[in-house]
């Protein structure tokens, strides 16, 4: 077969031309048609859902967008101030401090919970006695309402008489202030987030691992691959799609996470654990400044969309490969 013929066929295939040479009809020559009765029927069926979707999602977002360019509060819509709320927010040190903590919280939350979830999913893939019981127990941090787990963690670390500070004291570490010291409070909140989130990651990874054909491992073993080589060259690539999806979801969960932080530290001490979502809440509901508070929420949403798009492109890349 001549090279030019092969190239020609590949080119045709890229354009979607089939073996028969017909391919997809030329868009430019497609005959213009009106909307068919079937399309109208489908649209009519979809309308109630579409209407509710617009009403419950689009309208609030549009209204919030309007609020973000006004100087009102929860009752009074206030006056139009253009982009002042955005410029005010972006020039506030508190916003950047909250952004910094949000990034730390998200990175630790996503990758900490993913690592633990992956390790546990790999361990639970092997047959262990009472494996079902372990799975249920490991799911508890995710299943228990965060109000309950935050209260439990508060009991664990808040006062010098709490179990962990007493343990630290017994180990000669002195009076460790898990929540009162700004840096330790950040660490505690991040660890709490990892603890709450790893069961979700474990489930995601477990389902991804279940889809990997065991014959591939056997073939690799016969070729002399070590366990690490099997993990890095077979397991990781084959679960990468689920991994990216779980990262996207956990990034959204972490950036939007309000109760974990607010219930444990309230954003303190001295704003050390104030994330963007906590800052947004406090601005709207404690300072009654709707415009700047909603502006923070919009900036957050924009960043989240960008991060999600970048990760989603990675998923597409994985699919193509």
């Amino acid at each position, binding site marked *: 077969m001549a090279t030019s013929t092969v190239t020609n066929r590949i080119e045709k295939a890229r354009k979607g031309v089939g073996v028969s040479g017909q391919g997809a009809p030329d868009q430019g020559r497609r005959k213009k048609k009106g909307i068919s009765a079937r399309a109208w029927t489908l649209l009519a069926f979809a309308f109630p859902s579409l209407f509710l979707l617009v009403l419950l999602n689009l*309208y*609030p*977002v549009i*209204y*919030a967008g309007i*609020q*973000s360019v006004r100087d*009102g*509060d*929860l*009752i*009074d*819509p206030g006056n139009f101030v253009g982009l002042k709320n955005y410029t005010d927010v972006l020039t506030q040190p508190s916003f950047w401090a909250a952004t910094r903590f949000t990034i730390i919280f998200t990175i630790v939350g996503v990758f900490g919970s993913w690592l633990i979830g992956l390790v546990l999913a790999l361990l639970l893939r092997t047959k262990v006695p009472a494996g079902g019981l372990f799975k249920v127990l490991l799911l508890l941090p995710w299943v228990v309402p965060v109000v309950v787990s935050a209260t439990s963690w*508060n009991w664990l670390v*808040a*006062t*010098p*008489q709490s179990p962990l500070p007493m343990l630290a004291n017994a180990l000669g570490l002195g*009076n460790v*202030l898990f*929540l*009162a010291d700004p840096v330790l*409070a950040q660490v505690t909140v991040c660890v709490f987030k990892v603890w709450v989130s790893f069961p979700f990651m474990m489930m995601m990874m477990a389902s991804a691992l279940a889809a990997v054909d065991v014959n591939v491992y056997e073939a690799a073993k016969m070729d002399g691959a070590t366990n690490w080589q099997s993990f890095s060259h077979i397991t990781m690539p084959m679960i990468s799609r689920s991994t990216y999806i779980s990262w996207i979801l956990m990034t959204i969960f972490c*950036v*939007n*996470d*309000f109760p974990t932080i*607010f*219930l*444990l*530290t*309230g*954003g*303190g*001490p*001295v*704003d050390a654990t*104030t994330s963007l*979502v906590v800052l*947004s*809440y*406090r*601005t*709207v*509901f*404690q*300072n*009654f*400044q*709707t415009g700047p*508070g*909603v502006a*923070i*929420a*919009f900036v*957050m*949403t924009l960043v*989240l969309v960008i991060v999600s798009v970048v990760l989603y492109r990675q998923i597409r890349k994985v699919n193509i490969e």
Partner: protein
Amino acid sequence: MAAATLLAACSPSGGSGGGGGGGGGGTIKFWNMPWGNTEFNTLDEEITKAYKPEDGLGAATYQVIQWANFTQTFSSAVASNTGPAVSSGGGTQAFQFEAQGKIAYADDLLESWKESGLYDDFLPGLLDTMKVEKGYAAVPYNLDMRVLWYNTTLLEAAGISAPPTDWQGYMDACEALKKNNVYGYGTGAGAGAFTGTHALVSWMINNGGGLFDEDQKPNCVTPENIEAMDFVLEMVSKGYVDPASATYTSANVDSQWEARTFGMGYNTGGLANNVGGDVGGELAVMSPLKSPSGKQGALFFPNSIMMYTNTPSQEGSEAFLTYYYQNMTPLWTEGTGIGLPPLKSITETEEFQADPTNVKIITEWQPVARTWAAPGGDALFFDVTAVDGTPAMDTFSQSILGGNTDSKTALTALQSAIEGALA
């Protein structure tokens, strides 16, 4: 959460007063908070439903509003004209809604009470706290006091025969308690624990200071306030304050009192009941301290009942409130756990007099207690919402209790934060 904030911004705004809300068919919608134990709202509902209006006026309906997210509950209801005709609520709620034109002034109501004697039954100075430029924004309902408590057993064990009466005495008592591993200034300013902030402002007021001047403008960096915060910072540096206090919740604070690691400190008038058990019986309220400036005082919150412009009948709202105030005494005499009463006649009842702690608070603390408006005035106003449970105050309290600041720096930062919130 971002979505929640976006959604929260969507409460319909504008449109003041008008009918439609406040209860259909002329009924007066009364919303009240869980001010006491579980018996409070049951009895309160009974009192409300026993209201027999005069001809042409509407009856009253009763609704309990939980404290969780109450600001959002009221804001969205009032903004959408589906709110109550009469309600209690947060300590500064009336002033917030008054600034939005949603409050029906109580001037006519209070005028009518002058004839019936109800007006003169209020404790001295209380009604003044509700007066704004255009009239009375609300009517005092119950008093939430900040007072100094001490554990009698722990003080005795530290060799202190009588509770301190001035700041130096307080510092000496702290030193004596420290020898027994007890913190002399028990407090907490963590998530939702606003009492820690209230205590700091109480020290300022005790020294003749406070947060607002005569023009109702924030004025935090004053000699009185600096001296008061220096006093607190000295206690922090000397180890009289639990180093974890900055992030203690109210439950943590109560647990420290219960564990007998707190020997003294500011708290609400209900601390002994909250702690309960043997320790609850050991707790007592001391007399107000005399500060270096020779003054006395502490912060207090005159919680109120307000009327809204969105009512089927203003006459109906006023008639119901008159009935309610004439018949609300059992809320205090039947041990429902509500804060201190606003009426002298209730404080004179046998049941109230049987509690020496409450009597001490009413006779010794109430007369010297001041509102957020101190030292400039007593009448509350809209801008105090910038200091009532706000991030600025949390940050200030946590920085002081953390001890890594000085008074002037912390107060200057607070001044800027309040001004920023009011801008």
